[in-house]
């Protein structure tokens, strides 16, 4: 059974009114159980079932897959840029990290910085590099504007969705 199939199955179960489901095949035992006793199947109810997948024939012994699945539409933003509704952020737009990695403000240590605070940026302009596992990623601007703040120090680790830049759109 593929991970995608398991995910589909869990999503299907999550949308059903059942509180607990056990499925057993030759390959897998899956146990899906809801955390909250809140009545489900309401659009407003936020349900987070805990999912444990325990493959019996493991390619990688001693690795347990544990994941949390939201039953609601994923909260992950579709685009990398989202409006920051923070109190002092005003109408600024936050550029977020699309991946886990290390944040670099120039292509090499002695090269000029891609952007500085106050710089005007164009769509498609390189803002930074994020490196992970020797894969190097140039992050391009999706909007035109002016860099208001750089939220991460050079050569520091960044998480998925971590805010990197504040941009004032023009």
């Amino acid at each position, binding site marked *: 059974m*593929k*991970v*995608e199939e398991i995910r589909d199955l869990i999503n299907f179960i999550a949308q059903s009114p059942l509180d607990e489901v056990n499925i057993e095949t030759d390959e897998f035992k899956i146990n899906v159980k809801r955390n909250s006793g809140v009545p489900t199947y309401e659009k407003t109810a936020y349900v987070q079932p805990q999912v444990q997948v325990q493959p019996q024939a493991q*390619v*990688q*012994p*001693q*690795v347990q897959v544990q994941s949390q699945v939201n039953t609601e539409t994923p909260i992950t933003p*579709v*685009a*990398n*840029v989202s409006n920051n509704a923070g109190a002092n952020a005003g109408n600024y737009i936050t550029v977020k990290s*699309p*991946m*886990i990695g290390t944040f670099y403000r120039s292509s*090499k*240590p002695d090269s000029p910085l891609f952007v500085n605070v106050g710089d005007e940026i164009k769509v*498609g302009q390189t803002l930074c590099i*994020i490196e*992970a*596992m*020797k*894969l*190097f*990623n*140039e*992050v*391009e601007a*999706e909007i035109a504007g002016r860099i208001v703040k750089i939220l991460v120090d050079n050569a520091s680790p960044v998480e*998925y969705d971590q805010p990197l830049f504040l941009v004032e759109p023009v």
Partner: protein
Amino acid sequence: MYNFSTLFFGKSLIYLPECLSTNEYALQMLSDKNSEKILFDGTLIITDKQTAGKGQAGNTWDTNPNENITLSLVLKPHFLDANEQFWLNMVVALGIFDFVSSKITNNISNDLDNDLDNNSVKIKWSNDIFIGNKKLGGILIQNILSGKNINYSIIGIGLNINQLHFNIPTATSLVLASTNANTHTPINTYNVRVCVEELLSYLEKRYLQLKENKKALIKFEYLQNMYRYQEKAMFEDIEGTFEGEIIGVDEIGKLCIKKNNKLHYYHFKEVKFL
């Protein structure tokens, strides 16, 4: 000049007699709206003489002209999210592995006197190709992201083919690895052009597997052919040297090593193979 039996890899080709780095050339083309237009999915940028090849983390990749493969492929893996990019690394490593394996087994099959360990083709995490304990080639992937999407992926590959002498003792070439263990004579000189054609076929096959979402197969084969996978070996991390065993890689490509019966996940450069 080339005759590719691929669907789209190499169908568009930019040949440079000499250049600093094919990856750098591709990046420069992509930074210009007009030249970006002619970089189709699968475009091959290839040179006979790379003078400033890029290795890992700013290291250089030195290569004799005309003897080796130095190329970049421009891909548009729009079916992958940025945080899934380690899959690109796995399929490229596997494509090169397939190509090298086809050469090595063709030449030394049935030669029981050959020391298997010295000639086994392996993928060294995260993206080097080894024969025995020596490096045959490497991969440098540079992506251009827009939002959470990978707009372009530039796949740089350096693979030693006919070079006989290296400045560093840990490097090898296909010809050196194909040397007959008994007579110590090189088996042949490879036709680099044919090697490129074959390599691209293997790479495309693996890339299409990823596009078809055959991730379980890709990960299984990546691990099965990984250098020191599930072997007790010495490593070094921030706490010092230790004996450990590679158990796998996680979703973003971190190496999972069992150390003192606990699993540790390492980013590149956080662990050293000894």
